[in-house]
């Protein structure tokens, strides 16, 4: 049988630069080999050392032109913990309200409808899979009463890029979401108001700010009902009417990742009172505050944890992170442990509470993020050795097993569901779960003149915990999560109004420049549209001694290595590569014309972000040196 070799470089409609190499058996259409590679060195960790910790909030934000607020927020939590300060309740509400808009409502919308949506548009489906297009034309939509489309083909037609109505409505509504966030952040995509222990938003006219936010939130609530209904319909169509070449349901099998699934979520939307209260409880002692972080993270209005299959391994971030390791076996870095390059403060062996990193495993504790030193070592791509700038995060478990990691909206909903809990503010129940099912509640009375009246009423969305993470499950999860974050925006707005009525409008603790313990270290996790954003900070006397972070995509884009143990020993690679290996080609054109549609669908469903920020080089000019942007690669930085 002949083998088809596909190089897709670059994969478009993602953020940054990613390439895929795959080998496919032409007869069975199955993938025998898959590797993804990223070509850009980020390097922020190198130049962050020596700077004030609070600068990291604004510097790491520049990692990405789409999800800058993701890094800014993770960094802010790391700074909160290292400073021993958290905001007052109104500060937490404002942080949450802003993030619900930018990035979530803005980013999920463009990912679904503008970056992933074209893969399910008439333009692509009718060209590469004409039989699916024919089926779509005769398949009635199940959620017409909300989105107004009669058939699945009608939805696909409006997903056509540039000219399709859904595409154009997304241009408009992503703007509205950004406006709502900017009311609090000052600007997008790099918030200017996030500070340790608070937020510097001017609240002189807070009533007006909340009103401006409310008008946009109302429009966007109708919008997320519209978007969810579209993707629920597409999911059901690909589940019930589209098959893979071996007769399996497309939605339930294509792009499957690990078995058993390994899903990590950080949670987000700090509980206004609990996150504020841990400062009072700790009394300014950063170690004491660290001991209260699990309580604060688990009080978040979306829940943290690491799940293996349908079981929570641990809901406690301080415990999970003890085993969070990163390797450089297959990536373009020197192994700092083998080179015996310790961080400036020597090898850290314990967390602030005295618990051994990597559960005392030597040398694995040196691969913990507090001990990492970034040493770039560029080289040629060699799939047998090193082939990417993406490093290899793995999770060491208490029992000694080592697992790969997947993250994203599906991971967040997965953990929310397994927590079996309810999030409610007064009469507004935002969501509830029971261990196998999650329900999201959206309010009615949300008139939006651009959308059908079916989006104006109350809506309850039900999400069933899937067995696996697949391409379509990830897309559906993103659409459900879009609705969930908007429901949480309402919860935060209501809580903010309560605080206003009670006269509690102060936002921040008295942090000021230079106000840092002589030595402290911490981490900050914040779940974002692309996954869990994770920052680790070590500071000495108000200067960064070491700063390491995982972009939300880092675990997902991990290359292959041999660090994992059973049951993942033969699945020791990130979800991108796994999802391609578990995809079959469904294109109805001759093999020499295959485009890799199923593979890019699988990868785009994660909303990859390869960090486009550092593609510049220093050039001499007129006797001075500037940083000159040499080339801007086509990416998703603006839309």
């Amino acid at each position, binding site marked *: 049988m002949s083998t088809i070799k596909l190089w897709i470089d670059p994969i478009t409609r993602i953020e940054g630069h990613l390439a895929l190499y795959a080998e496919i058996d032409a007869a069975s259409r199955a993938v025998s080999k898959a590797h993804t590679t990223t070509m850009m060195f980020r390097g922020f960790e190198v130049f962050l050392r020596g700077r004030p910790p609070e600068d990291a909030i604004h510097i790491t934000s520049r990692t990405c032109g789409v999800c800058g607020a993701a890094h800014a927020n993770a960094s802010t939590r790391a700074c909160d913990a290292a400073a021993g300060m958290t905001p007052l309740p109104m500060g937490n509400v404002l942080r949450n309200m802003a993030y619900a808009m930018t990035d979530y409502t803005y980013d999920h919308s463009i990912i679904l409808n503008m970056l992933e949506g074209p893969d399910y548009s008439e333009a692509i489906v009718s060209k590469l899979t004409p039989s699916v297009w024919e089926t779509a034309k005769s398949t009635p939509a199940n959620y017409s009463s909300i989105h107004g489309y009669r058939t699945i083909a009608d939805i696909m037609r409006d997903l056509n890029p540039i*000219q399709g109505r859904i595409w154009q409505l997304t241009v408009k509504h992503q703007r509205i979401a950004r406006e709502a966030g900017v009311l609090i952040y000052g600007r997008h995509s790099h918030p200017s108001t996030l500070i340790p222990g608070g937020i510097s938003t001017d609240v002189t006219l807070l009533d007006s700010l909340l009103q401006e936010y409310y008008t946009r939130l109302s429009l966007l609530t109708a919008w997320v009902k519209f978007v969810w209904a579209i993707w629920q319909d597409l999911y059901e169509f690909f589940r019930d009417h589209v098959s893979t070449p071996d007769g399996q349901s497309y939605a339930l099998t294509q792009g499957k990742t690990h078995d058993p699934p390994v899903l990590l979520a950080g949670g987000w939307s700090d509980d206004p009172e609990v996150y504020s209260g841990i400062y009072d409880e700790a009394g300014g002692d950063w170690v004491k505050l660290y001991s209260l972080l699990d309580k604060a993270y688990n009080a978040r209005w979306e829940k943290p944890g690491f799940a293996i299959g349908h079981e929570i391994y641990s809901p406690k971030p301080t415990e999970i992170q003890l085993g969070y390791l990163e390797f450089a076996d297959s990536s373009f870095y020197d192994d700092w442990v083998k080179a015996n390059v310790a961080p400036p403060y020597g090898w850290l062996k314990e967390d602030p509470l005295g618990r051994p990193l990597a559960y005392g495993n030597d040398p694995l504790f040196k691969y913990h993020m507090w001990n990492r030193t970034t040493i770039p070592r560029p080289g040629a791509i060699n799939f047998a050795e090193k082939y990417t700038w993406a490093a290899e995060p793995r999770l060491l478990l208490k029992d000694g097993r080592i697992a790969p990691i997947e993250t994203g909206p599906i991971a967040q909903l997965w953990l929310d569901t397994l927590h079996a809990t309810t999030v409610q503010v007064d009469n507004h129940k935002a969501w509830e779960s029971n261990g196998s099912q999650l329900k999201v509640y959206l309010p009615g009375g949300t008139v939006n003149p651009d959308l059908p009246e079916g989006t104006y009423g109350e809506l309850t969305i039900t999400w069933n915990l899937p067995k696996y993470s697949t391409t379509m499950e990830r897309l559906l999860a993103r659409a459900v999560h879009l609705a969930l974050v908007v429901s949480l925006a309402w919860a935060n707005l209501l809580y903010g109004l309560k605080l206003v009525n009670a006269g509690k409008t102060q936002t921040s603790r008295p942090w000021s420049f230079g106000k840092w313990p002589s030595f402290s270290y911490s981490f900050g996790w914040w779940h974002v549209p692309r996954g869990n954003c994770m920052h680790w900070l070590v500071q000495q006397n108000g200067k960064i001694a070491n700063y390491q972070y995982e972009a939300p995509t880092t675990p997902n884009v991990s290359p292959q290595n041999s660090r994992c143990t059973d049951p993942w020993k033969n699945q020791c690679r990130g979800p991108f590569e796994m999802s391609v290996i578990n995809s079959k080609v469904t294109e109805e054109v001759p093999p020499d014309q295959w485009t890799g549609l199923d593979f890019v669908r699988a990868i785009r469903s994660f909303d990859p972000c390869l960090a486009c920020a550092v593609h510049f080089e220093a050039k001499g000019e007129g006797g001075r040196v500037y940083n000159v942007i040499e080339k801007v690669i086509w990416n998703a930085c603006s839309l």
Partner: protein
Amino acid sequence: MERLLVVGLGNPLYGDDGFGSCLAQYLSLFNPFVLDGDAHGIGILGNLTDYDILIFVDVDARLPPGVVAVERIEGSLTVDQTRLVDAHRTPPSLLVGYMRAMGLNPKAFLIAVGPRSFEPLSMASPEVLKAAPAVVEALREKLKEFGYELRAEGDVVKYVEDCYRRVLRT
């Protein structure tokens, strides 16, 4: 009355390039239909789609330094050509071309001034600063054609200079 938006474009970190942005900041103090488009590139697209008339304020490197011109933006892109737009560098012509590919057809104009320099981290050139009142007058005349009145108070040149100083922290 047709829906109209004035959009100033540019990045004050790059010398004369930021003139449109700074001027729009000034004019937006007095006129609700003026928007500072900054250097958002194609990210500004979502702000433009609801209008019948768009008037951009930007530099045009084809003009001699300080020369002011009123230009009509014509032409369009095909859907395929939109793939070639650089998301970060999107002049008014490409923004309007993009909108026409979307099936929209606004009347579009550019009040342009010729730049002297795009030197990073430098103040707008004397030629461009001196042209600021003429740009305001040209805009006022164009707006009159569509029944809009432009309001402005104070010293426009000083405001634009101050705008650069805020950005450059000088």
